[in-house]
């Protein structure tokens, strides 16, 4: 079992090492994900529902949103 895990690890390790174009691509992808999830999310997206500590409060907040008609 352990030997299989080592073989799988080496398979991926050697594969990534041999990449040329792929390396650039994955760097781009990781960079983009970092910008989206680590930077933008922190500054621009408040946790709208998860700021409520309990499921009941979340449910009630959404119910309030759903039952408040436009111009109410």
């Amino acid at each position, binding site marked *: 079992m352990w030997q299989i895990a080592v073989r799988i690890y080496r*398979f991926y390790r050697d594969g990534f090492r041999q990449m040329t174009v792929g390396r650039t691509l994955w760097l781009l992808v990781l960079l983009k994900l970092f910008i989206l999830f680590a930077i933008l999310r922190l500054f621009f*997206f408040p946790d*709208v529902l998860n700021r409520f500590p309990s499921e009941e409060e979340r*449910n009630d907040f959404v*119910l*309030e949103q759903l039952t408040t008609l436009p111009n109410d």
Partner: protein
Amino acid sequence: MPMDADFLQMIDWSRAQFAMTAMYHWLFVPLTLGLGFLVAIMETIYYRTGDPFWRRTTRFWMRLFAVNFAIGVATGLILEFEFGTNWSNYSHFVGDIFGAPLAVEGIMAFFLEATFFAVMFFGWDRVSRRFHLASTWLVAIGASLSALWILVANAWMQYPVGMTFNPETARNEMTSFWEVLLSPVAINKFFHTVSSAYLLSAVFVIGVSAWFLLKGREERMARASIRIATIWGLVFALFTALTGDKSGAVIAEVQPMKLAAMEAHYEGGAKAPLVAFGVVKPEHLRQTPDDLFHFKVAIPGMLSAMSYRDVDAYVAGIDDLLYGNPQQGILSAAEKIERGKTAIETLAAFRAARKAGETMRADSLKALFNPDTEAGKSFLENYFAYFGYGYLSSPEQTVPNVPLLFYSFRIMVGWGMFLVLLMLIVWWQNRKGTLPRHRWLLWLMMLAVPITYVASQAGWVLAEVGRQPWVIQNLLPTSAAVSGIPSGSVVVTFFLFLLLFTGLLVAEVMILCKQIKIGPDKV
């Protein structure tokens, strides 16, 4: 929810942001879906023949597949992220319904792709040829399985079934997984979407192959690739047309306003004509209600035949759906709005009773949402079914953008039909060996690539804009689904995402073009 200027801006910018990120994602997905199978077919030929030519050919197209796959993965993640940030009310409201297909997609399909993708890409000469071939096929199948679950989720938005609404949790709860998975909208949407993606991949392969022929390079590889891609493309062009036709018939039943809008069909009637092509007049230029087109080419009875398989069938027009048609059993939008308001008020009364501790009143109101009681069944069918209408202030808000849908539909169908012809001509010229001589045809094959992408996007514009004003057909309008975040935030993130995604797209196109110029592995 106050509909002040900031809120309206926030809705529009949130819609624009989701549309932009979804369209960017759809630039990469179709090629992944289709090219995966084309690569698998080529590798199967290599496996059976042992001819190194096919190994070289397979590895070339696999390289392009890998570039596209990597960028496509990143663009998809942002959409799931947006559900929570910009569409929190919607995310909560759809709850389990959306969560289940996306969870299955993540666990099953994505891991299938991701695991075997590594074997496919890293495993040449490191695993057996049989295992490598199996991995390539599993990546292709995994990609289409991912698409299935996403499309099931989207189909539920177009035709919400298999659920019941729980007023205590403000969530829709799935009552039948099979009803959601096997709804007619889900089945048709899946087959139509993937077959159009397979067609796009065929166009891509013949377009790139045409470039090689124009440059006088890799003629054998180009012609062999064209031979496979044209057959694949022809099969799926026809299948796309068939499934598209079936989709239209389903839309006639479950989204009649979408059908009427995409046909610019205002006045309902039997033997309804299909406008094959036309130029729609803006409303302010129409002299009479019938004066809809600057010109049109219409096929009598065709819309009735395509919608209901009966040339004498009545096809409801926009005016029927707006103002009602008692003879056809069509409620007016105004009546639906009143019923929707009743449903919302009932939900509000339940919430108030529960907060005030009025248990008996709360329980009796809650029972109205229970489909297993007579009162509940009646309330759900006659009032809750129009829940979303209660948010609208005028019947006209139920009409989506008619010219946008009219032209999107015709771009999609017109180009799709042209591709059937193109595949046939290219296949024939390639078989005769005369393709390299017809430079005009090679240029057309290359030009077909971006136009096919435009047609493919037009299909999604039709699907999603055609569903407006709804995010969930009849149950939740877009305006009620957004998170209450300042419009300024959404504007900033829209432009940041636009910059980021455009940068990624430019990078991908540059990398793809470079890989194409490099060509297959040196012999």
